[in-house]
Every structure is written in C-alpha cells, then in structure tokens.
C-alpha cells in the first residue's frame, strides 16, 4: 500500500510538473491542480497509513485510530487550494480577455508595442 | 460465503473499472468518455458499499452518497459544456 501511495504522489507530481511547464495558462492550471493533489496526498500520508481506522471515536472498546492531524491539515490545504485555484482561473481568464490569447509567458514585444501605441497617440 | 461473494463482487467491479478505463482512453467520442467517467462513478459507489459490508461499518456510506450526488452534477456539467459551451446560463 505504501508503494501505491508513494508512486501515486510521484506520478501526480511528475504530471503536474510537466503541465506546469507548458506555455498556455490552461495546461498550467491543470498542472497546478495535479501538483495540489500530489501535495495533499503527501501531507496526508505524513501521518502514515492505516486501513479501516478513521479517527472517529467509538464509544465502546479500545480502538486504533489513524493519525487525525495530517487529515485536518490536508483538509485545510484542500480548501485553500480551492480558493487559490478559483482566483487563478479568474486571473487567467482576465489575462486572456485582455490579451486575446492565453499565453503565459510575457514578452518584451508586448511592452514595446504598448509604447509605440502610446507614442502614436501622443 | 459472504467473503467469497464479496471477493467475486469486488472482482466484478474492479474489472469493470479497468474496462471503463479502456473506454475513457479510447473514446472515440466525447460522449463515450463522459459515459465512461459516469460508469466509473457508479462502480466506485458500488465498491464503497462493498467496503462498508466488508468492514461492517457505515463510514463509507456518506462518501458513496456524496459521490452519487457530485458524480451526477459533474457529468451533467461536462455534457452541458459540450452542448451549450456555458454550463450556467
């Protein structure tokens, strides 16, 4: 099981990194989503793995529970990542609407073009 | 006997997941992929209930209920996107 989790984290990280290095906003967003998955699983796994032992206290008997703390942390991380992703999507959309394409790299040419327009107007 | 039946059912749904994966990989139509995803969702619900039986616990129940609910919503959203572009008009 440990191998499964570790390799899942690895696969997700690899996929995320590859996509994050693309040149358009959309794949980058997808990449960040994958990275976020990877980080969440990673953080969750830091409490080690345990089957059928959710940290919900049972009234009777001695029960074994998995580590609840990383779960709480991961939950917080998921929520934060959600807020971040939402804003990221919106910013990407805004940049696309303003620029006309969703290229993520900025080039000096854009800059110069702006200056030229300004000169022309003046 | 229940054990054996459980193993059989697990096997069926597990195999089913692989078949769904095949379909989602191959397509060819967008509709096929969405259908495959929806089927994955259904199979997962079944698997979750099976786990509940296996471990004799109800903790898997909420998850399966929520999967059913959000599975529906996301499937519809995917379809709406293809159909109308804007999923919330």
């Amino acid at each position, binding site marked *: 099981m*440990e*191998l*499964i*989790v570790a*390799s899942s984290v*690895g696969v*997700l*990280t*690899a996929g995320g*990194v*590859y*996509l*994050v*290095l*693309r040149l*358009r906003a*959309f*794949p980058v967003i*997808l990449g960040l989503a994958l990275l976020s*998955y990877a980080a969440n699983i*990673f953080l969750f*796994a830091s409490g080690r*793995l345990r*089957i059928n032992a959710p*940290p919900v*206290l049972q009234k009777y008997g001695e029960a074994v529970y998995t*580590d*609840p703390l990383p779960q709480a*942390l991961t*939950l917080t991380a*998921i929520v934060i990542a959600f807020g971040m992703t939402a804003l990221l999507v*919106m910013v990407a*959309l*805004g940049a696309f*609407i*303003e620029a006309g394409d969703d290229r993520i*790299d900025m080039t000096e040419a854009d800059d110069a073009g702006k200056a030229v327009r300004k000169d022309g107007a003046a | 006997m229940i054990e054996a039946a459980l193993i059989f059912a*697990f*096997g069926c749904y597990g195999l089913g*997941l692989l078949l769904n*994966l095949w379909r*989602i990989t191959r397509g060819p139509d*967008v509709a096929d*992929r969405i259908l495959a*995803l929806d089927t994955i969702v259904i199979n*997962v619900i079944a*698997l979750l209930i099976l786990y509940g039986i296996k471990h004799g616990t109800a903790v*898997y129940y909420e*998850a399966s209920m*929520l999967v059913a*609910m959000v599975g529906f*919503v*996301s499937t*519809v*959203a*995917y379809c709406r996107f293809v159909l*109308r572009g*804007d999923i*919330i*008009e």
Partner: protein
Amino acid sequence: MSSGSSLLPIIAILPFLGALIPGIMIRAGRTACASFTAIPTLLALVMLGVLAPAVMRGEVIRAEIEWLPQLGLSASFFLDGLGLLFAGMILGMGLLITLYARFYLSGEDPMGQFYTYLLLFQGAMLGIVISDNILLLLIFWELTSLTSFLLIGYWKHLPEGRQGARMALAVTGAGGLAMIGGMLILGNIAGSYNLTDILQQGDAIRASDWYLPALILILIGAFTKSAQFPFHFWLPHAMAAPTPVSAYLHSATMVKAGVFLLARMWPVLSGTEAWFYIVATTGLVTMVLGALIALFKDDLKALLAFSTVSHLGLLTMLLGFGTKYAAIAAVFHIINHLTFKAALFMSAGIVDHETHTRDIKRLGGLRHLMPITASIAVVTALSMAGMIFFNGFLSKEMMLDAAAETVWAGSAWAVPVAATLGALLSVAYSFRFIVHVFFGPVRDDYPAKPHDPPFGMWAAPALLAVFVVLIGILPAAIVGPLVAVAGGAVIGGGELPYYSLKIWHGVNAALIMSVIALAGGLVLLALHRPLDRLWQVAPRPEAKVIFDGLVAAAAGLSRRITEGLHNGAISRYLAIFVAASVALGYVAWTGGGLAPADRAMLPIPPVVAIGWVLLAVATALVVTMHRQRFQALVLIGVIGLMISVGFVYLSAPDLALTQISVETVTIMLLLLALHFLPKDTPRESPLALRARDGVLAVAAGGAVGALTFAFLLRDFSPISDYHLANSYEGGGGTNVVNVILVDFRGFDTYGEIIVLGIAGLAIFALMETLLRGQAARRLRNSDQSQDRSRDRHPLMMVVATRAMLPIALMVGVYIFLRGHNQPGGGFIAGLVVSIAFLMQYMASGFAWAQARQRIGYHDMIGWGVVIAGLTGAGAWLAGKPFLTSAYGYIKLPLIEEFGLGSAFLFDLGVFLTVLGAVMLTLYSLSRIARYAGETVNVEPMDYDPSQRAGAVGRGGE
C-alpha cells in the same frame, strides 16, 4: 574632553542647519539670501577661531556623541592642527565663494538651491576633516560625493553638466565604496573605528596581513577623490559646474579630501614600500601627466583643472615619499595651492562671465580691458608657475628638494628628473595662461565686450592674491605656525623635521632644478604653436570616451543579463524552480542518514491496485492529451475521484468528502472558464524543451515519490495522540478531524475561510474591473455563436433538480450537524449546499435562480467570517484566549442529547463563507458570460408543455 569641545559638534552641524536658510531666504532677494547663507559659515568660522588658539598650542579638542555604539560608530569629532588647517580653508573659502557666487550666478539660476547645495557640501567637507571616527568620516566622505553631484549637475539643462555630475559620482562613489572596505579592515585590525585609537596603532597595522588590502582600498578612495591617475579624468568634466563650484570643490576643498586622507592616515599607513611605490609613483605620474595635458588645453577652466590634477599629484607624491620633510612640504603646498588656484578659477570665471568665452584661442589682450582681473590672474598664475616672491615658489622648492633626495627603484635620477619636468610644464602652462589671455594685442572679436566686473566679484580673488604675495614674501610670519602645527599633526607628533620657510636657501639642487624648469618652460611656451599641432594630431586616449564606453558597456551588459534572465518566460522560471528544489532537496537528503525502516507495509488488495492503475493512466492521459482541454478535464475528474476513494480507503472520510466536493466545484469553475478560452492548446514547445520538461517532471516525481516512500516505512510519535485523547473530553466531539479543525487548530480554519472569502472578493473585484475596461469591449465583440444545442434549459433537467434541491439541502444540513461527531462539518456542508444550488443554476439558468436568491453572497461571506471571528472572540468575555471553545449538552424533551457548542457557531461561519465564496465566484463568471452576449432567461425551462395544453385547448376552440 577639553573646554570648548562642545563647539565642535556645533561647528559640524551648522552648515547643515544653515542649508535650510537659502530656501527660506530666497524670497527676500538674492543679496539677502547670500548674506544669510554666509552667516552659518561665518559663525562656524568664528567658533573655529575660538578653538584655534588651543589647537595652535598643540591641544587636540575632542567631542563625542553616541550614535550607533554597537557598530562602533559615534558622532565623535576632534580638532588638531591638520583639522584646523582644513576647516579654516573650507570655511574661509566658503565665505569667499558665497560672495563670489552672489555676483557670478545670473538671475535665472535658482540661487536658493545653489546655496543649499553649497552649504550641504561645506558641511560634508567640514565633517571629513574633523571626524574622529572613520565610519563617521565615511559618511561625510560619501556626502561630499552626493553634494558635489548636485553641484556639478546644477545646470541641469547642460548635458555636460549631467554627464559630468554622473561621472564624478560614479568615480568618487566607487572610490568611496572601496574606502568603506578599507576603513572597515582598518577598524578590524585596530579593534576600533576611532581615529584617535587607530592613529596609535601604526606599527600593528603595518604589520598586519590585512595591511595591503586596507591600504589599496583606502588609496582607491583617496585617489579617486583627488583625481589621481588613472582616475583623474572626471575632474575636468566636473568643470561643467558653475565656476564658483569649480573654485570651491575642484581646487580648494573636495579634491583635497583625498590628500587630506593621505595626510590623516600618514602616521598609520606610510613608511612602507607599498605606500612609497604606490602613492609616490601615482603622484609623480599624475603631476607630470596633468601638467602636460594642461599645457594643451584651450579651455581656461580645463587648463586650470588639469593644473589642479597636476598639483594634486604633486601633493600625493610628497606624502608618498614618506619622509617628514616631504609631508611638511605637502602641508605648506596645500595652503599655497588653495590661494592661487581658487583665485585663478575665479579669474577664469570672471573672464568667462565677461567675454562669454573660455577659449584661450579666442582671447588675448585682456590686460587692457580688464586690468584688475588681469592683475589678480597674473599674480596668482606666477605663483602657480612657482616664481620667486610668490608662495608657489616656496613650496615648489621644498618639493624639488624632497624629490632630489628620493631614490626610486634604485635610481637616484628618476624622481628628480620627473619632478623637474613637472615644474617645467607647470611654468609653461602658467605662462601660457598669462600670455595668451591677458597679453598680446586687443582683439575685436570677443563674443562680448569685456570689462572688469563689479567689486563684489573680484574682491574674493583679490584677497587671495594678496595672500599669495604676502605668504610668498613673509612665509614664516604668516603661515609658519599653522604649517608647524598642521605638519606636526600629519607626521603624528614627535619631532618636526628641520625645515625653514624662507625665500632664499642659497644655490642648492632645488634652485638649479627650478631654473631649468623656468628656462625649459619658457622654451616650451615659445614652441607652443607647433607643439600644439603635434599634440592635436597625436593619438591619445580620451578618458571620457573610455569612461562613457565603460558605463555604456556595463549598462548594456546589465541589460543583457537582466533581460536574458528575466525574459518573461515563466515556464523557464518554474523549470529553474523545480530543478533547484529537486537538486537542493537531494543535497539535503544525502547529508544525513535514514533510520532503519521499522514499519510493516500494508497489503495491496487487487481493487486498490486497479484504482492505482486508473489514477496513473488518467494522469498520463492528462499529460499526453492536455492539448484537448475538455478531454483533459474529464480525465481530471477520474483522478479526483480515485483520490477521494483512496482517502476513504485510508481511513480519511472527511478528506474524501471534502476532496470529492471541492473537485466537482473546481471542475465546474474550469468549465465555466474554458467556455471563453481556446478549446485546444497549440503545440508550441520544441521537442528539446519537452524533453527537458519531461526530465524535470520525472526527477521531481521520483524525488517526491521516494521521499513519501521513505517516511511511510518509518514509525514516528506524533503529537496527535493528545488530540485523540482529548477530542471528546476537551473538544466535545468524536470526529477528531473536525474537532481539530474547529477547536484544536480552529485558527487554521479561521484563516482558511478568510482565504476563501478573499478569493470571492478578489474574483468579484476582477470581474467588475474586466467589465469596466477595454476588456469589456472585446468581450462584447467576442463571437459566442458556436454550434450549440438549442435547448438551454431542458425540461427533464429542470424537473429533476427541483426534486433534488430539497433532498440535497437535507443532506447538507445532515452533514453540517453531524460533522462534529461523524465525518462532515461546515465546509463540506457548504459545498454540498453550493452544489445543490449549482444544479438549480445549471438547470434553470443563473438569472432565474439568482432572482430567487434572498441573501447576497457578499453578505454570506461577511457574515461567515464575522461569525467565526466573533465566536472566537467570544472567549474573551470569559477571559479565555481566542477560539477557546465552550459546549454543553442540551437535553430537550423527546430529542436525544444534543451537543451544542461554540464549535457549532464557528462551523456555521465556515459554512456561510464557503457557500458565499463559491456562489460569488460563479456569479462573477456568469456575469462575464452575460456580458459576452448571453441572454438572460426569465423562464425556468425552455418550454413548459402545460402551456401546450393551454394552447392546444385554445386552438381547439
């Protein structure tokens, strides 16, 4: 601390306080302004006069004000002979320049600014010479660079002024920075930054390993400031400044700062071979080179500037000899050079002012037209030439005397010959200044009609000329004591060497060298015309061109580096980030060992393996198919689902619920955004780049995977045992994850909902901004006419969601209420309810559903954050810290025990914030869509068939 020492800090601060005056007084008129500017200088001079007798007696006056003791920096001042000499020169010249500038500057020049800068500069200069702390000295040193930058660039409209100012700043600033290093090393060796302490430790310093670096760094500072070869080039370009500035800074004071520093540090740094060869040689070369260039300069001020370079070289050389006699000679020549050179600059300024040219080739015969000016100029120029009966002669003789006895690299001839050559050239350019400007026939082509200026303008140079003569004739009486006390300070106490300030020493080596120099100089002057032609065609490096080239190259290189590195390609930035993280992580990893693996691995059931395959394949597909964006999103759905199921399997039901609901909402957001974005990603990266990214991806994935595997195999003892043990007793809940979220670590959750709230606000703000700006126009014009299905709000969907909404809300309430004890809670409930409403919005359209929404989303977020915050703050009422929980079990009739606690309220805040943020986000995206031309529906479904029944019925009638 001697009596009167409190005057020292006042003297130091006076010019700075005085710098405020011109700004205020300029409205009262130019003369009033100048007069009041003079007052602080005069005051300081008077105070100096009060202190002078004690200093002349050999006392050293000290004052110290604590400033930054941790660093060893204090505002400590001391006044000894050398300080007194320089302070007197600075303040005295300051007065004269103030007077001169009043008449020199024209009505259009902002005089208030000028005097402010002048006083600031004066203060900085004064600070250098009376600092008893080398860090403080550094501060004043840098201040002179800054203020001279302002003064040189005073005429902002002149490009030469701006360039000259920048050049001066760059060169002297660089020197100053080097000197910082040198001084810090010096302080490090001496164990103190106080000059008084440092001056005691000459032997230790010279013996230190760090002596040479310190020496070189300090010398760079001194040489740049004093325009020594090869840093001499900035000084002539500083002549773009108004002449008062040139006279003050570039002859009398600032350029002497370097010389001052050499003199100040003489007891500590001199006396070594390194000192001799570096300092004396630099001075010698500078002296000869400066004089040679001066001879061929046609610009009056340039001639004087290079002559200054030459004389500074002379001074440097003298100090570099390292003998006490030479040091005394240097002190004496400092005084003499001040008098004649300042007067010469002022005279040149008068000529420029009156004739509107400084070009020697366009001048001549001025003695007839401006006799007063001519007299002053001739007297002072003769002194510069080193003619007998003028003060320049005396110190020049001492210089030649010292040179005659100096052996350089085994040669007894090198230095005397070079020194004589310098003197010879000096004679030549001095006489050229006299003859070519003032003698010869009167011309009729002066740019303006020359005549003597008003008294106020020639008074200052005239006074200096008087000193030139007086000192020249009666040196011992006029400056003897001052030279003695200042010289004593330079050589660091002890016996003064034998020297005598008198005109005639008999025929000695120096006199013979002088005669040679005079004769040779006159011959050179006679041959000036052909030599000049030769000079003009001879190739010679133009320092300004080189400097400009250097700066341009540095700027160009900087630009290339900067723009090469920061090329706007975030994909590269991220690649570097990933590579750095992996590499550094690897380095860290290899530096330590791993504990033995002590945790048994869990078995892998086949179904779990299948889930892994789905996850891995889906991830791979997302990567390979990412250019088809929609398909990639479908696959992301698979990944999210598998992760959720994984969480369930690994005993994390809360996480699973959260993951799956967040997942859904995220996908909906992405779909909403993708509606506007291109549906496909073009293939843009070349293969090499994709290969690089692949390598990085595999490396990062492998690293993180290995790290995960490493810790999963090792047991640990976390703090969470406490949470498990205290969750019920202390937190009132059995779902430990939830109790951690709302109680143990409720502060995290509080922050987390604030993140969500901010996201909602920021998204809303961005939407509003987009709809107001240019983007709005582009949106309006965007083409939304795709090949779309014609049913926007299909009947079946509408009906199904109507039935599901109440059920989903029940589920939301259920998940909310049970969260504290079972998986669930405010966050998941918020998402579930959001999703319930989302279904409604998808089915019947945003506008129709929105019209039925009674609570604003802004308010929901606000209420949520405020409720959570106030719940936390409620604990203050009980005197407990923020977020201290309180709970109790209420036993209602019929209803079983019902836990009600502050955690419930807190969770309610979470719920509201989540709901509000999600809905506000969707609202914002939907607004954009509507702006882009979507129409708004008023009916919940495309067509209600019950209308058909009615229509048919009517049709039937």
